[in-house]
């Protein structure tokens, strides 16, 4: 790259992010070696990027946010159907407002970070960018969920059935009961619970 050709901002940004192919990286590097003006722009740009990286990220929602949101999604069939209630009524419910504040905050922060980063991290070649997904779920990976109890119960009762003095028929019944969830526990396990249920 000749001394007369000065890389523009996007090229310098891509150079700093090591996003160019090797000949272009080498060309801009050689140019910066001989051009003090571009070296100055490159230093400024590097400093700006450093400042942006140092900004605090969006604060996380409270610990019970995910649990309550998960339950809300699971249990409220009527609201999930959503057809009967007007949108304003759904959005103005107290639970929705509480959740919405966090969702709006996180989404706004994500959009702001995206806007600041976009000109700095783009490359010289036109890059097909994925559509911006404005949702809370896209900002964080899904929360871990404990294994399904019905499946665990089947595996457990299978194991018990193999014990030398086990009662395999009753174990099969227990697994089937758990699968159907037709036996609601009154105040604890119905079979061999001890008196101490107060811990």
């Amino acid at each position, binding site marked *: 790259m000749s001394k007369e050709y000065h890389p523009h901002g996007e090229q310098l940004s891509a150079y700093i992010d090591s996003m160019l192919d090797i000949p272009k990286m080498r060309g801009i590097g050689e140019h910066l070696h001989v051009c003090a003006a571009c070296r100055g722009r490159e230093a400024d740009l590097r400093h700006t990027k450093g400042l942006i990286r140092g900004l605090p990220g969006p604060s996380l929602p409270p610990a019970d946010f995910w649990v309550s949101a998960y339950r809300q999604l699971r249990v409220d069939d009527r609201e999930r159907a959503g057809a009967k209630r007007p949108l304003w009524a759904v959005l103005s419910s107290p639970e929705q407002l509480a959740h919405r504040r966090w969702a709006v905050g996180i989404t706004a922060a994500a959009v702001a970070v995206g806007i600041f980063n976009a000109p700095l991290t783009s490359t010289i070649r036109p890059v097909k960018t994925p559509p911006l997904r404005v949702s809370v779920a896209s900002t964080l990976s*899904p929360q871990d969920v404990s294994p399904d109890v019905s499946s665990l119960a089947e595996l457990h009762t299978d194991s018990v059935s193999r014990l030398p003095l086990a009662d*395999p028929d009753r174990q099969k019944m227990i697994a*089937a009961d758990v699968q159907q969830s037709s036996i609601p526990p009154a105040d604890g*396990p119905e079979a061999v619970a001890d008196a101490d249920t107060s811990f």
Partner: protein
Amino acid sequence: MPIRRSSLLIRYSLALLLPVPLLIASAGTCRPASGRLAKPTVSAKPFVPTAESLFVQVLRSEDLFPYKGRQITTYWRTGRAVEVLVFHRPVDDRRLQFLNPEAQRGRLLVSDGAEQWEYEPHQKVLRHRRLSPGALDDDDLLSYTLLRANYLLSVDPKVRTVAERKTYLVTIKRPAGQTLARRFWIDRGSGLILKREIYGEDGKLAVTVGFSDITYHAALAGSLFSLAGLAKSVHVAELPTAETAAPLSTLQSQLDGLASAPATLGGYRLVGATTTKIGKHPVLHLRYSDGLNLASIFEQRRTQPGRPTLVPAGMRVVPIGATPVHVGHRASLTTLNWDTPTLNVTLIGEMGLTTLRTLAQYALQNR
């Protein structure tokens, strides 16, 4: 109980070796020093077998006789009773036909030891699943060793009658407080357990499972042990619960080396392990036994260590030490679930909270 073929050798060896001391002893008493035959004497005390010999008889014969019987299971704490017809054909064919309560009438459970079909008539659904392979480490001797180490065994000299069959009554007590843990009525002729009582940790009777009648000479058609015909007319649901045996020597490398598998949890010993997938996640299944009860520990790797794992709604939180533990009940099973820095752990057992809490404490200490 399905027979594990690899343990048949152990069973038969025990069964064959057991009478040897008796034969030697009887030979000594029947052959006097003079060489003449002694006059047979009638012993004042009836012969009473040991608990160990009876359990060997149970193991040796429980799957080898075909039978049909009516079995009643009573849960004394809730008053619920379930009545089923049981059909058994050697080696592992088994059919349960529900008679009562009315809500469960018509329900069928058929298994061949490797697969199980369950027909639910009200929903008209046929559920099919593969049964777990040899879940334990296939060592019945280990179970008896644990049983003897953790419990007191005795045999009642009086012969009892259950379902018009003569039985021996074996009683198993906990050493602490001498409270009852189990009682078994074992058929003197067939070795089948005709009745069993399960006692809670408070020593109170919790469950009774017993035959009200049984016949060893029933004609058992092959069609009894197949629900393939039903599969053409009703919805079939496949339940994905297949397990693969995991040798105990490989456990430390499971779950990318994060698995925690202590050899003992108090009086409970690690007797077997398997791996499976629930959803997309690998799960390690550890089995701990005291010879009579079995507790399962399921370990799943956490991907979000910063956030607590979601548990089913309805589980209540109780602290064990500094760890919040979720407790829930399904049917007669109790479930405890907690997070470690790297794993989500589920403990399941049909036992009291005191025991499960103790096991959880041991498990937490070993991490």
